[in-house]
């Protein structure tokens, strides 16, 4: 492996590890389910994508091995992790989990009320 590719892989690895740590920190520190979901679904996704990209370039540089499985994994995480975050956040809202008591805006509340009125 050349020095350039090693530096590139090391930077990608460190960025990925830092983003995973940021996701865990946000999950500990943030006040309610929705903000925690915001932290977890975005930074964890980008972190794992950086680490998988580093793995892809590592095997390409060390063995000359082009791993299409890793590229498929990156695409899969990019598609599914935000969908999973959306679904679980929606399930939390519909099962009545309270927002943080200092949050000021809830657009979905009026919409749910209007839908219930039009159904009647």
């Amino acid at each position, binding site marked *: 492996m050349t020095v350039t590719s090693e530096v590139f892989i090391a930077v990608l690895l460190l960025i990925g590890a830092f983003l995973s740590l940021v996701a865990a920190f946000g999950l500990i520190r943030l006040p309610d389910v929705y903000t925690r979901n915001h932290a*977890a679904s975005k930074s964890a996704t980008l972190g794992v994508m950086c680490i998988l990209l580093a793995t892809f370039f590592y095997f390409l540089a060390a063995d000359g091995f082009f791993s299409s499985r890793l590229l498929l994994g990156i695409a899969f995480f990019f598609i599914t992790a935000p969908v999973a975050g959306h679904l679980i956040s929606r399930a939390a809202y519909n099962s009545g989990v309270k927002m943080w008591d200092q949050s000021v805006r809830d657009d979905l509340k009026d919409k749910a009320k209007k839908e219930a009125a039009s159904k009647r």
Partner: protein
Amino acid sequence: MIEPILHVTLAVLAIAMIGLIYRLVKGPTVPDRVIALDAMGINLVSITAVLSMILDTSNYLDVILLIGILAFIGTVAFAKFLEKGEVIEYDRDQ
């Protein structure tokens, strides 16, 4: 040359995992715990990738895809259970 950086990455990922376990144990509501489990699955994928680089083998790359698919299916099933009360609906009841 890249070996120490791999070990540092593994240590940072382990620390992140401990933070997620804290939220999994403490989390006041069920969606909190599901979010923590989903993030743990994603973190496990990163750990598998780093470990396959440390062991210098490409045989574990299938495991990455497998864990990703299983974590997604589990989260979707949990979300549907929380919202509708059942995972697979039986909609032909008369």
